């Protein structure tokens, strides 16, 4: 049913909200990529089957009159991916974790038909405290969810639920109560900065496009979230696609652009299908397309799929890719705001940036400014991964100290002690905690991170424990950027290759102190002379690890030793004679016959034969074999 006017939108909201509220209980099954991989869709089907069998009405469309039913829905990512598959039961707000198919019957019987919380499915922390309600779990309690407000709270595929919770009201406000200039001013006043990494002021960008005299302008949403270890944008596109669309429409109104593209990377098939469903539904309702809400404003939105190229996250490469070309960056100026997609003025913002827009328009810049420090207002979503107890998707006010994110929300470091955190993916840097540098109490915002040579990037936080070798990590990132270098400019194409060779030498034991000097020199050259952002920041992981973990590099090149015991070429195994009982097990297990010794006497390893397969370490019952 088409919504023709603002009044109709308001009425539709009332009707859908009443209908939503009349659902006596709601089951929100997480259908983000993570939980789907854990089998959440099968759980959804099973729950439906059981309720259908019992004659319990479920999955009712919101158009219908208020009714007595249970709302069973597939929601976006709840964020607590480590504990998936997740199910949230409303109105009680219970969160069930690690749900299995066998639990479904009990969930329906006890929690849906009855009012009993199932003790064994709720979250229990390391100290043995249990939490019934999702909001009380420390992981959630310390978060402030603005951009992720609806993610996990509503049916991700339903436009009616989005309208019920206030969706598209910001578009109506922007169309009828504000001029283009008003919108740009409000966004400027909110000091919203681009969430894709650079932190460029969004209002300023919009103003520049608004100033352009061209007839045709474009709004492009960058959903090419290529940073390994980041999945915030994916979760937003999957979990609250209409919010992305709404933000893009508002950008269109603000800059008088009538065409939009969402560029999504090919590795996110679920995001593509959810967005397409959302676009189709919005078109059908008249919230996209011609004459939106009878305002005279037209807006057409399309999805463009990437095909696997990290460099396409860079603005001019992304627009080249939408145009059907090799995704290579070009020399600037002219900048994207002047000559972007198809040579027209273009607003290019990240998914999360657009997600912040509707609430700024609805609640005003002053409301938004209460979050985060001066010039860095608002919140930021992070993907918390790596060696951390609670991996998942989080959102905190800008300026939240790293310590709070890793220890209070993330539940601390897994499998060892805190060593470093890699922020901002291959363009970012490592943060650490030692006598000289304390980054744990560093506020996470654009300006503070820049000061220590890191950047917020798109928001990936990969936590590393003391078993991670920082030289290896630097090598890993260099390998990544070298693979992804588009080859257009020499500094990036050749520079990253040579830097990778130097790092290979170091981890394989051929490094010298000159290697480090050369690395630093190359890093400087590449970052000063490369053409695009990818190239300019390609050396950051190396520079930051060299700065904060220089001793580790020195240990590799001078002592030929890997302090974390990760670099195979530099690790040797030895048998502790005081612990060895001479059981001969290791000698029998060794595939290359490198271990010798008599029964009941301490054994020895011939390091020249040893292939470091670790079979002996894993097999020794007396923990007598160590790496040195």
């Amino acid at each position: 049913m088409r919504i023709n006017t603002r009044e109709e939108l308001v009425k539709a909201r009332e009707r859908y909200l009443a209908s939503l509220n009349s659902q006596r209980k709601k089951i929100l099954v997480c259908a983000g990529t993570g939980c789907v991989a854990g089998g959440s869709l099968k759980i959804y089907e099973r729950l439906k089957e059981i309720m259908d069998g019992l004659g319990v009405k479920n999955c009712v469309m919101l158009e219908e009159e208020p009714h007595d039913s249970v709302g069973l829905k597939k929601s976006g990512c709840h964020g607590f991916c480590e504990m998936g598959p997740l199910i949230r039961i409303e109105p009680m707000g219970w969160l069930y974790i690690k749900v299995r198919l066998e639990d479904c019957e009990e969930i329906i019987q006890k929690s849906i038909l009855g009012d009993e919380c199932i003790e064994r499915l709720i979250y229990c922390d390391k100290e043995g405290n249990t939490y019934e309600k999702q909001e009380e779990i420390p992981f959630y309690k310390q978060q402030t969810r603005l951009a992720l407000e609806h993610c996990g709270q509503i049916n991700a595929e339903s436009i009616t639920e989005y309208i019920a919770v206030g969706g598209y009201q910001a578009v109506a406000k922007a169309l009828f109560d504000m001029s283009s200039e008003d919108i740009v001013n409000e966004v400027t006043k909110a000091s919203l900065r681009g969430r894709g990494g650079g932190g460029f002021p969004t209002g300023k960008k919009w103003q520049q496009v608004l100033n352009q005299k061209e007839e045709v302008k474009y709004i492009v949403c960058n959903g090419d979230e290529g940073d390994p270890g980041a999945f915030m944008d994916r979760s937003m596109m999957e979990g609250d696609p209409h919010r992305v669309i709404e933000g893009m429409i508002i950008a269109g109104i603000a800059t008088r652009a009538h065409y939009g593209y969402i560029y999504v990377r090919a590795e996110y098939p679920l995001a593509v299908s959810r967005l397409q469903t959302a676009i189709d539904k919005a078109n059908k309702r008249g919230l996209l397309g011609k004459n939106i809400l009878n305002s005279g404003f037209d807006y057409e939105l399309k999805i463009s799929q990437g095909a696997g190229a990290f460099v396409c996250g860079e603005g001019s490469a992304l627009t080249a890719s939408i145009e059907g070309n090799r995704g290579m960056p070009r020399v600037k100026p002219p900048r994207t705001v002047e000559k972007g997609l198809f040579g027209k003025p273009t607003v290019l913002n990240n998914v999360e940036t657009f997600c912040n827009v509707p609430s700024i328009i609805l609640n005003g810049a002053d409301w938004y400014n209460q979050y985060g420090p001066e010039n860095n207002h608002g919140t930021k979503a992070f993907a918390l991964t790596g060696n951390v107890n609670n991996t998942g998707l989080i959102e905190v006010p800008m300026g939240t100290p790293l310590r709070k994110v890793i220890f209070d929300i993330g539940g601390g470091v897994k499998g060892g002690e805190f060593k470093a955190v890699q922020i901002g993916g291959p363009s970012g840097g490592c943060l650490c905690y030692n006598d000289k540098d304390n980054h744990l109490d560093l506020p996470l915002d654009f300006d503070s991170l820049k000061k220590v040579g890191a950047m917020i990037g798109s928001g990936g936080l990969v936590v590393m424990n003391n078993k991670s070798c920082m030289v290896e990590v630097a090598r890993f990132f260099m390998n990544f950027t070298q693979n992804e270098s588009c080859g257009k400019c020499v500094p990036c194409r050749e520079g990253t290759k040579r830097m990778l060779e130097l790092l290979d030498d170091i981890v394989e034991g051929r490094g010298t102190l000159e290697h480090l000097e050369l690395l630093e020199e190359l890093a400087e050259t590449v970052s000063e002379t490369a053409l695009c952002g990818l190239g300019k920041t390609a050396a950051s992981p190396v520079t930051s690890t060299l700065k904060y973990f220089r001793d580790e590099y020195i240990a590799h090149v001078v002592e030929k030793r890997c302090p974390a015991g990760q670099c195979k070429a530099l690790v040797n195994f030895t048998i502790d004679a005081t612990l060895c009982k001479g059981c001969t097990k290791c000698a029998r297990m060794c595939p290359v016959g490198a271990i010798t010794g008599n029964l009941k006497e301490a054994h020895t390893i011939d390091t020249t034969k040893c292939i470091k397969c670790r079979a002996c370490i894993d097999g020794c019952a007396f923990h007598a074999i160590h790496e040195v």
Partner: protein
Amino acid sequence: MLSEQEIAKLNTIMEQHAYDKTQVIAIMQAIQEEYRYLPEDALRYAAKELKISEAKIYGVATFYENFSLQPKGKYVIKVCDGTACHVRKSIPILNEFRNQLGVSESQPTTEDMMFTVETVSCLGACGLAPVCTINDEVHPSMTPQKVKELVAALKEEKA
């Protein structure tokens, strides 16, 4: 040479994209979906129909990681080596797949055209690291032991 049937199929794909040359990436994705790779003949035909040079279509096809000019196996196994998977030990998973199936980086596909093993940089399922996908189905929290089981199950399925 393309059969009539193939030409009809390629025409349908291009019609769906209105013979729009800016859609060449989407068109090639559809072709790849059909063949599981991009056959040379199909690319030549598409270039002709879209009125772009063969050099141009070849250039685009070779730029993007997702396009393959080599046929792939029935089961495409992608081992994620994004940062999060990497620090949670994805390389032993990759090596186990390669050992089990007797393939390598330069020879990613088995001779019987059943399996292809490749790496992918981040599937965004970092919470479940390390992960791999088999024909786009995500398998979470992988271990070398699980690799053995998965390969055995797939081989059984095929038999």
